[in-house]
């Protein structure tokens, strides 16, 4: 679990934020970001992630707690003295300046000489492959190009920390995927610490070193992408990241790393207890769709099996998506790879499905 430590480059120490003095938007936030780390704040809208970013940038003040940058508290430092680069959702390129003037702006206000300035602007433009566009106005550029310029502008004054507030939200899918790659490449090449805010989980998983999942003003889980996906710590994270099947039930017994769960339909299954502690507690059992197997030959010997009725079969090209009724749940989805020997299920058919107990996580209800 995240705890504030002194060795982080950016540290949130028991930070709280309230806008109206009645409700907390950010509740007791503790977060430590190492130098050079790419951290993504992921969460639904209203979860407090953007507020955190704005507090770090200095546009909002923390109601309680300290934010430290490189060991120094920055609560009372105005935004323009923090030296933090920022990329905004709508790019915020100054429309009355050319691309080159936009890039020269942070250097000008830092009183950097003309020749030095030009060299840095040119280097930043080349870095995002926009060298030929210095004389254009932002309005003459496409969304993707504006995005690159916004990125170059946030990096041109060589900040050690860059914040990005849903920077790819306005781009189409293909361009977004390309820019995801581009941004991670730049961040790692330049060794910058990056705090990236998004509500797109794919973006979070593909780009980050660490992902902080926000909900209800708290970090629900802070973990590297693979851990987040495969080992969600609570049912919010399990639901929010990727597709997830949920079976509701009650804990019957916990012994070590195994828990017996009585599903609401009466079936008893074995699951891995994550944040459940005692028998009698309500639980949600989470199983990833691609970890469910129905091909008897491939079922592991230890696999746990249940009866299921096929409700719907969707052909998606690379995978098959099948909706089943399992233990009274009509929305149980399984995903199977479109392999040559894969059987295509037909609605109405009754099959037996199974999974490994460690892929089946008993989470809070």
């Amino acid at each position, binding site marked *: 679990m995240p705890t504030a430590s002194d060795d982080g480059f950016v540290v949130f120490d028991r930070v709280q934020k309230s806008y109206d003095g009645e409700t907390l938007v950010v509740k007791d936030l503790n977060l430590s970001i190492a130098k050079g780390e790419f951290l993504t704040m992921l969460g639904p809208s209203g979860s407090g992630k953007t507020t955190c970013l704005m507090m770090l940038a200095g546009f909002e003040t923390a109601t309680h707690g300290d934010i430290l940058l490189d060991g120094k508290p920055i609560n009372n430092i105005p935004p323009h003295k923090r030296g933090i*680069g920022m990329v*905004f959702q709508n790019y915020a*390129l100054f*429309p*009355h300046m050319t691309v080159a003037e936009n890039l020269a702006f942070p250097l000008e*206000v830092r009183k950097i000489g003309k020749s030095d300035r030009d060299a840095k602007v040119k280097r930043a433009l080349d870095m995002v492959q926009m060298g030929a566009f210095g004389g254009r106005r932002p309005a003459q550029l496409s969304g993707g190009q504006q995005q690159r310029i916004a990125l170059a502008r946030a990096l041109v004054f060589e900040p050690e920390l860059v*914040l990005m507030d849903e920077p790819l939200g306005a781009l189409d899918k293909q361009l977004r995927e390309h820019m995801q790659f581009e941004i991670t490449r730049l961040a790692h090449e330049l060794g910058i610490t990056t705090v990236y805010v998004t509500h797109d989980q794919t973006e979070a998983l593909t780009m980050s070193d660490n992902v902080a999942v926000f909900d209800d003003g708290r970090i629900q889980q802070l973990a590297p992408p693979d851990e987040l996906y495969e080992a969600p710590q609570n049912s919010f994270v399990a639901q929010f990241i990727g597709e997830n099947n949920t079976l509701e039930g009650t804990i019957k017994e916990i012994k070590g790393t195994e828990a017996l769960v009585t599903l609401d339909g009466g079936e008893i299954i074995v699951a891995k207890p994550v944040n459940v502690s005692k028998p009698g507690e309500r639980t949600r059992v989470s199983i990833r769709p691609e970890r469910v197997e129905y091909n008897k030959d491939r079922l592991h010997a230890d696999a746990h099996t249940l009866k299921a009725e096929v409700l719907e079969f969707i052909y998606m090209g690379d995978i098959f998506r099948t909706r089943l009724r399992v233990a009274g749940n009509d929305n149980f989805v399984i995903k199977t790879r479109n392999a040559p020997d894969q059987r295509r299920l037909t609605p109405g058919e009754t099959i037996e499905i199974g999974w490994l107990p460690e892929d089946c996580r008993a989470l809070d209800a």
Partner: protein
Amino acid sequence: MSDATQTGPVLAADGRPLKRSLQRALRAQKMRALALIAPLLIFVLLTFVAPIADMLFRSVENSIVSDTLPRTVLALKDWDAKSGELPDESVFAAMAEDLKIAEAEKKHITLAIRLNYQTSGVSSLFRKTGRQVKKWDVPNDGPYMEKLLDVDDDWGSHELWRVIQTYSANYTPGYFLNAADMELGPDGVQQVDDSQKIYVMMFKRTMFLSIVITVSCIALGYPVAFLLASLPLRTSNMLMILVLLPFWTSLLVRTSSWKVLLQQQGVINDILVWIGLVDDANRLVMINNQFGTIVAMTHILLPFMILPLYSVMKTIPPSYVRASKSLGATNWTTFWRVYFPQSVPGIGAGSILVFILAIGYYITPELVGGTDGIFISNRIAFHISRSGNWGLGAALGSILLIVVLMLYWIYDKIVGIDNVSLG
């Protein structure tokens, strides 16, 4: 795919040129649009364009002299005004005949008033002569030179005949020259006496005061608009009502309340005297002068500056300001380099609006302007409604119109009308 090899006009499916097909398809739409605007268009034509065109025409129209005195005008054609001699008997005879007819039709008084604008005394001369002429048996009881001179010595005035000759044409630049403090003399265009010069000074004053008022409106309106645009919607709506409140109050009430405030026995002077800033004997004169006009008009025109400014500022996303600060700019640099340039279209729109309204303003300068705070429009009103010299009024109005159009053109060259935004 369209066949790129085909040359000539693109054809529709039925073989007709595509352009014509498109026009036919859109015709109904165009007719409908036209029908929708027709009532307003006719209304505007009848009540706005036509009267303005008529007034513009009046500034050069001058057929009254040749209409009322056709024979005299003809007879005067050969007279050389520079010779220093009076016209000969034929001219006087023509005048007597014209006057008799004009008197019968009661047209000589109107003519007299017209000629009186150019040289004084004509009005009474024509009235007096008119009474005599109707008893004469024109054209048999001549010679008329003597008879007219008998009626009044003024008929022997060389200047009178020169004026009649000068203004005998159907169109005259005379009103425009008068409006520029000039007149048609015996040697062509000349300046009027310094003592009679008024209009050039009035135009200059109107321009100057309008500029001062516009600048005051920018200075007072910009911060208010900025506040309105940056406050949350609920609060800004409340404040907006305060901005609009003056609109709902009668112009006369607002102007009169400035009188109450600014006069020498008024509220402000009383307070200044009471706190000892001003001596009771030297109360400040703040009304019935330029200061009063500037204060009252700035107050009245302020909403016209605030509203366009506000609507432009409202469209400047706060993320620009944030971006600028995150890039290291101080509050002032952010304002001056990022925010202000983007609000310029609002300043442009507000300034044009305020300036054009100010330059033609009438009621407020009339009420609080005294003598040195009145505008050219007050003179125009004077000529239209009191002196009856519509031609001069029309000429002054035309000049005002031309000045505004020229300023508009200059503004377009410098700032660009495309940059003006009303939101």
